[in-house]
């Protein structure tokens, strides 16, 4: 059962990483325009031609 000593913290750490990634995304406004984000991915005017 010694494996738990590092497996449980690893699981927690991964979870925390996910949580902070979400909080960061929220803070940087990535959820403020959900419909727009879905459509922007299709446009390519950010590519200089």
């Amino acid at each position, binding site marked *: *059962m010694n494996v*738990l000593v590092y497996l*449980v913290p690893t*699981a*927690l750490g991964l*979870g*925390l990483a*996910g*949580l902070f990634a*979400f*909080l960061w995304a*929220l803070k940087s406004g990535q*959820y*403020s*325009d*959900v*419909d*727009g984000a*879905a*459509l*922007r991915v*299709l*446009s390519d*005017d950010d590519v200089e031609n």
Partner: protein
Amino acid sequence: MTETLDLSHYARPMADGTLGMELAVEGIACGACIGRIEHAVKSVPGVTEARLNFTNRRLHVAWSPGLTKPAAILRALEDGGYHGHPFVPMRAEQQEAAEARRLTRCLAVAGFAAMNIMLLSVSVWSGNVTDITPETRDFFHWASALIALPAAAYAGRPFFASAWRALRSRSLNMDVPISLGVILALGMSLVETVNHAEHAYFDSAIMLLFFLLVGRALDHAVRRKTRAVAGNLAALKAENAHRLDGGEIVSVPSAALRTGDRVLVKPGERVPADGIVLGGRSELDESLITGETARRAVMSGSAVYAGSMNYSGALTLNVTAAGGAALIDEIEKLLEKAASAKSRAMRLADRASRIYAPVVHLTAALTFAGWVIAGAGIHDAVITAIAVLIITCPCALALAIPAVQVVASGALFRANVILNAGDAIERLAEVDTIVFDKTGTLTLPEPRVVDAAALDPQLLQMAARLALSSRHPLAVALSREAIARVPFDGAVEEPGQGVRTLIDGIEARLGSPQFCDVMAPDAVHASTICFRHGGRFAVIPITQKLRADAIDVVNALRARMLDLHILSGDHADAVAPVARVLGIAHWRGGLKPADKIGYIETLRGSGRRVLMVGDGLNDAPSLAAAHVSLSPISAADLTQAHADAVFLGEKLAPVLDAIDAARRARTLMTQNLWLAAIYNAIAVPVAIAGAVTPLIAAAAMSGSSLLVTLNALRAGRAPGGQK
């Protein structure tokens, strides 16, 4: 005289020294518009940032001061085929955005914690029936405690704060049993963990918080969305005023006008602010304010009200403080009284929680007392009582109503109804009597040609095309009949009389009977505009027509056993024909705002639930006095602010759709409350018996929440059977 456009009212200094502005953008059709709009605006020299939010149709622009002007940005949008309407974001909207972010953060933390604790809990549950060692179990319980305690302290704050506020004002709300349940469950679990016990309830407490936060977040999302849409509509409606600065005319947003400003109002425009006429003569249509369709003559010294339509001549006004006018004062006084009466209506959720909170506390207390009397130890009795608190905590109850509201408000939105108040759906469903205003509500807000088919089509088309050259409201009404929307060349407008031009080498005149040299019969309920082309002429009556589907909608409403009334500020002779066509027996004309309230109060006194549908400023107090209220989008601003919902478009059908959707939503809400009650009826006896393990609590909570949410999705079918 050229006119400059001054939009500095909307510009806000940004952190990096540029100026920023928010625009509500009209005309966005598809995803490609995002790139087109941003590209068009960014190509204006001096613009440093342009970002379109497709979800709420708003554009944020920033530019370097001195390099460009906001007016140039608007022009760039216009050139691209879009209309930008600048607005100042409302403070309430910003506060709600911050609150929404806070709720989402709490939700994220609770979700993370619930998942990880559940991971550990499932191991313990399966270990308990197999061969887990007490040391491993303790380790898992301590790990759970490590996650649960900080997570609850963070994610539970919205509930703890609200419960604390309620307790301090010596009342109970839904958050009191929630907070108590969560805190006691965590505390007890901690004690049990210290004592190497088999069960801990960390997962139940956190999962409870998670489901409750989902309910809160949904509830909030509805309010935010309606507010954003309402903000955009207000921006779309905002009009520019011509301010006289010395000899120069500056076009400024009406919101930027101050007391003492001098303003020019051209024919065909609405008066931008309350004021006193300094110069000029004209006739004003005040139907938006009083409901009266007959026009009032004004001259130097007359008081005029914001929202009146200027008909014949240009006026110069001195802006007076809003509310200084006797009419507005009277309306505001009535409004105050009516609004305080309205707060008596209680939300369904509040009513449920008022019964619910004491019952939960009492059940938990009785369970504790019962087990002590039955001879169980204090420790066991406390654990069972806490289990009762946890299991009764209203996961399903908290989701039951917000989930339906989210789905139903989406359905209403598709039916062109926008909610102002979150609980409007519940109140709409209870309506048994509808009171309509006439002008602008049953009739279209803008006048139309009475019977276009009876006129010579060729003459009518010529007249309508000529009308395109004039901004006189009657001409604007006539121009709607024009098929070719191209004005004639060389049209000359004679102020206060009409327009003339040459068509096929023959002089054509459109305007007053004298101007066209026509003997027009006196029309009582219609204004007339005359047209002469050589020897041929036409007298064209123009009036406010009924909304196209008014008769059908009124019949459908009657079929739903609703009692219909018309209350109008307009002259009784003008109301009678409308009431007759619609077959509405109860109608009154020539009413003052106080009379309308009196009528509604009488209806309420006899136990009726009244829906008031109105648009005029004179309707605002009656809207506030009624059980629930609807306004068309063309309504006066103050009126719209007091309506529970606003409907768009030229049809009356949204009124019917709103009632149908609200009734269905109400049924689903009641069903959901019953589902939650049945769940409690099954789970509570089990808990009182002391048989609830954390596994049962988890299954019961998620099961009932899921059931209630799925049931709520049924509210999404669009009203009127479309889609």
